[in-house]
């Protein structure tokens, strides 16, 4: 038996090596050196697993899916990595070459708190040009409504997110795509736009119609133009921040009415593919829910000869174990979404489910069923992670019951997570209704590396920041920011904008404090529930964090969607954006019946004064006989009774 196993693993080894050699062969013609490194890396791990198989029969069935090679060139069909091979449909010659492509993906990451993080990504790539007034009017997979928005408003890049709940970085780690609570919108306009503010105003109104959200409340009082924090994520030659607008609405409540239009933008709607799982009654019964749309131009190839437009729709949700698990630590697709999967979206060129099993290589923490033979590795958030892959385009994934219901069963409760290298929190200090202080704490948990972070704060005008009280301290010492961009507010016109580049020393807490004074609003400016308080949007912290594994700088390679959003410029660090909590600040609130009371009171006072004055002026005075004294009058009454003439 053992001999058989050995021979099996040897066969496996040979197979791996063979496949790699074919990959390298093909690489010489089509792929580049960066790819090569990743490929060799993969083989090493593959070999390790191969060795492990001798001791661990459970892992025997696993195969490594070399994700870099897969689908990169359709000619590599001889790579025999996947057991199943799809029946190739013969495409007739008359069929026109399609210029758009759709991919869908679901990543499930079991969190150490016992919660489940599910992240959906849908990507539509379209080889077209929206730039410079080029009229695009024939749509296939790309939604028409968004295409029209891009053309009409000359949008270079558009990022919009709606989030309910706050992402707890300390408990859950970094999300694949960060977003602040409420609604966030940032847009880069093309440099041909002359009236950016007018375009922005109209764009927010149109988007609020498309997404059924209150984005029309975005106006100049909550819009800023960050100078450094929000750089274009796609290809662009515009870096002048005059063409950038950024706004958040922390008050925005996200619900079904935002999800429905979001789902409508998908080519398959919610009828097929991964989107059937998006049932609103389950999605909103969760600790965290965030849906987003990102549109940007991207390169098709390394030399960027052709560009295409990418529409990325993402939906992140964290399910709480304890509220709905009835005490059992067990999860399935059906329990989470009340649906199972039966097919991939027929329009998708790739449709996959990834389950993060990095912390669980020997199945000692949780058990996954049905088991999958496909494994994949991806560089995500500076770390090399291992995923079990379910390819929905393969019929075998669904098994004999023709439906896929993934089940995760926990075995042990313990397990600790690496603390995230960077996280931040924020609060308001102070008492009374006149002044206060905003504290922002940024933690660098890296044991020996310091790195710079960009802090962006956009504070509404009704909190008047005293910028001279701004202090930045780390480890008890003053920390001088190397770059400060401050734009003071104007009452009822624009908010404060504060951007700073701060170096965070290793293993430290950096505290930024600034004092403010609360303004008195006009009585029509208060919200309907003024005693609830006023929201101040999240601070944004953008940083290049030192990575553990070498990052892949080639952005055109085929990678899982969740690991390819932020472009990576160097191998030693990766980009992270984190959002702090939004603040809720009480402003001095008047009694709203006061105006009427004041009017009544002043009117009465004026009337009383006027009345007496009027009396004095108009009454005629005449001399009267002084009336007789009281004693005399009494005496007179008595005399009358007695019948004696009065005095």
């Amino acid at each position: 038996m053992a001999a058989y196993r050995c021979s099996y693993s040897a066969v496996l080894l040979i197979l791996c090596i063979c496949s790699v050699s074919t990959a390298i062969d093909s690489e010489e013609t089509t792929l580049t050196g960066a790819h090569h490194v990743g490929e060799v890396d993969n083989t090493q791990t593959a070999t390790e697993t191969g060795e492990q198989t001798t001791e661990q029969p459970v892992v025997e069935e696993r195969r490594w899916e070399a994700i870099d090679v897969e689908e990169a060139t359709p000619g590599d069909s001889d790579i025999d990595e996947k057991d199943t091979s799809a029946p190739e449909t013969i495409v007739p010659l008359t069929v026109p070459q399609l210029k758009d492509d759709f991919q869908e993906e679901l990543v499930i990451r079991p969190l150490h708190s016992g919660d489940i993080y599910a992240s959906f990504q849908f990507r539509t790539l379209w080889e077209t040009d929206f730039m410079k007034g080029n009229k695009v009017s024939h749509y296939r997979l790309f939604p028409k409504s968004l295409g029209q928005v891009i053309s009409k408003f000359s949008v270079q890049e558009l990022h919009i997110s709606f989030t309910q709940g706050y992402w707890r970085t300390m408990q859950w780690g970094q999300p694949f795509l960060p977003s602040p609570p409420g609604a966030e919108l940032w847009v880069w306009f093309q440099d041909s736009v002359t009236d950016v503010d007018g375009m922005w105003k109209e764009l927010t109104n149109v988007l609020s119609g498309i997404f059924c959200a209150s984005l029309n409340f975005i106006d100049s009082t909550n819009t800023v133009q960050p100078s450094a924090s929000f750089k274009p994520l796609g290809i662009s030659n515009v870096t002048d921040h005059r063409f950038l607008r950024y706004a958040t609405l922390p008050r925005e409540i996200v619900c079904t009415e935002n999800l429905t239009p979001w789902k409508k933008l998908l080519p398959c709607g919610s009828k097929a593919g991964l989107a059937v799982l998006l049932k609103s009654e389950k999605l909103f019964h969760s600790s965290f829910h965030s849906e987003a749309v990102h549109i940007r131009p991207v390169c098709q190839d390394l030399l960027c000869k052709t560009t295409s437009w990418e529409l990325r729709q993402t939906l992140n949700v964290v399910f709480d174990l304890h509220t709905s698990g009835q005490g059992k630590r067990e999860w399935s697709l059906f329990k989470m979404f009340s649906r199972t999967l039966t097919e991939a979206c027929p329009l998708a060129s790739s449709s996959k489910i990834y389950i993060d099993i990095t912390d669980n290589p020997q199945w000692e923490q949780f058990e996954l069923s049905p088991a999958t033979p496909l494994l994949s590795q991806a560089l995500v958030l500076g770390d090399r992670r291992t995923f079990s892959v379910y390819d929905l385009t393969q019929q075998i994934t669904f098994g004999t019951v023709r439906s896929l219901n993934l089940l995760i069963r926990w075995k042990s409760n313990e397990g600790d997570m690496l603390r995230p290298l960077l996280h931040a929190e924020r609060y308001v200090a102070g008492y009374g209704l006149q002044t206060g202080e905003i504290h922002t704490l940024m933690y660098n948990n890296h044991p020996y590396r310091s790195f710079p972070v960009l802090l962006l704060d956009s504070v509404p005008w009704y909190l008047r920041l005293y910028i001279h009280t701004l202090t930045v301290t780390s480890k008890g010492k003053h920390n001088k920011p190397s770059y400060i961009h401050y734009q003071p507010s104007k009452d009822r016109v624009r908010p404060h904008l504060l951007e700073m580049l701060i170096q965070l020393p290793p293993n430290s807490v950096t505290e930024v404090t600034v004092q403010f004074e609360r303004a008195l609003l006009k009585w029509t400016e208060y919200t309907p529930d003024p005693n609830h308080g006023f929201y101040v949007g999240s601070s944004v912290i953008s940083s290049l964090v030192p990575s553990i594994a070498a990052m892949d700088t080639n952005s055109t390679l085929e990678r899982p969607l969740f690991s390819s959003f932020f472009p990576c410029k160097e191998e030693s660090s990766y980009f992270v954006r984190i959002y702090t909590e939004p603040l809720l600040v009480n402003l001095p609130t008047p009694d709203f019946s006061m105006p009427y009371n004041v009017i009544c009171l002043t009117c009465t006072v004026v009337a009383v004064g006027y009345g007496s004055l009027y009396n004095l002026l108009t009454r005629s005075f005449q001399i009267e006989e002084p009336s007789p004294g009281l004693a005399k009058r009494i005496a007179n009454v008595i005399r009358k009774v007695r019948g004696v003439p009065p005095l």
Partner: protein
Amino acid sequence: MATTEVERRRGQLAALSIAAVVIIVGVPLWWRTTETYRAWLPVSQIKELAKLQLQLSADVEVVFARGTVTPEQQKKVPLTLSQDEEHIVDEKTALWYRYETRYRTATIMEEDALNQPTAAEADLSLHTLSESPCGSLVVYVIPESSPLLLQDVNVYIGQRRTAFLRVGTQMRVGRTLEQLLAHLEPQLKQVLQLMSFSHADITAALSDRVRLIPGNKGGIADSMRAFKSSPGYEITFSLLNPDPKSHRVHWDIEGAVQTYIQPLLTKLAPVANFSIDSQTLYYAMLGVNPRFDSSRSAYTLNVDSLAHVINPVEARLGSNAASSNPVLNFLLYIPDAHHSPLYIHDHKKQEVPSNAFHSPRWGGIMVYNVNGFYGSEVVYPVDININMAKVMGVFLAQLRLLLGVQSSSPPPGFLVAPCSSTGLADWELDRLMWSRSVENVATATTTITSLAQLLDQISNIVINDNIAQQVSSAVTSLQLAVAELEAGNLGFALQYSKEAILASERAFFDPSLLHLLYFPDDQKFAIYIPIFLPMCVPILLSLLKILSEARQKHREKHAKKE
């Protein structure tokens, strides 16, 4: 006694002067500080426009070819006659139609053109000779023997603004020109009705202002089918593929739009701006389940159920994000593999040959069966290329209907030239422009008059200067449009009427008219009462007292005199 009298007089004077101060200073001050800003509006001109009196004039040229008039008749031409028709539509709307008819004989070049073998060629060569302006017509009267027209055809209507009219034999011999004209009159009138405006068209265009006479049901249906006049339209072609698992459908919409739709829209450019989009929607279902007809082994959709088809589809279509113009939807529905073929049945349970239908003021739907393209043992998904010529033929016909290009059937003896590649004859465009101009004028006047009424009724709406400016420009454009219609300059009339409609809508929907703080008068006075009441009561009382005293004194004096 004297001192008390002096004192009393002083009190009276004080009361009077306080009353005077309150009335002269206080009341105007209060009035001015609480006044709302209302810019001046041309109310009298708007009132004039409310009583709409439109005069439409068309220039008609009647050209006698050689052999239709005798030499003595020829001496009297050229001459000009004008004809007036008056229609009172209702108490606020009156219409005058004026045809300015010029009679002349054909020039040598025109004679040459008329000698062409066929009517279509003659039409073309006459067009190259001279282009008649928008809104005018040229009628060539040709002799009985002319080979241009077929035997049983008396009138040929060309693709441009020309028509050929065959003159009867009995008129050849020695009659006066008046008699000839009287003979031509009824046919000429029919030609005018067909090629220029007709009363039915114009009243249909006025349907906004005038309640249509009940009973004329067909006319109402016709007038309700076309879209309302608008400065622009969005045309959206949607390919509905409810079954992408089985059918991979490709359509060359870009090429088809360039070939079939764009020429028509280029021709229609003076009427409105058009923009064309297309999209593909997957998993878009119809709202009804088609019934299986076992005798035909096909699925059928009944006429009665078509009304329920659109609503669920419309939810997927999405509104136009880029403009607020009306959208014309054209849907091409590919039935899924399990429900094909699918046919639409009319009232008589017969298959509709085009397999398409349209919905008034919304768009059209065509069902395109693809099950014939593949056999039963095919491997799904099947790649299918759509025959765009077939589809666009149907959509083009629907587009013409929905845009209000009337295709009324010609009277007997008339031959209408077949559509050219543009899909629209010049005179059809003219007809559309007449009715669109009238419709625009009618809509703009209703908008402006109702805005004036509204502003008149609610007295505390602020009227800003820009609204006043929009209203004035709308009124000016309206007056210009009416004047141009009267002068017969159709192109300018349409242009001005479009400007009028834009300006009036902008004024009507201006957000500044919708301010939030409109307090009703009773609430305002409730707030003022604490100061008004204690102030006014003593003043009034003392004034009354002074008045009564004065009257008494007067009476006493009177009594003394007597």
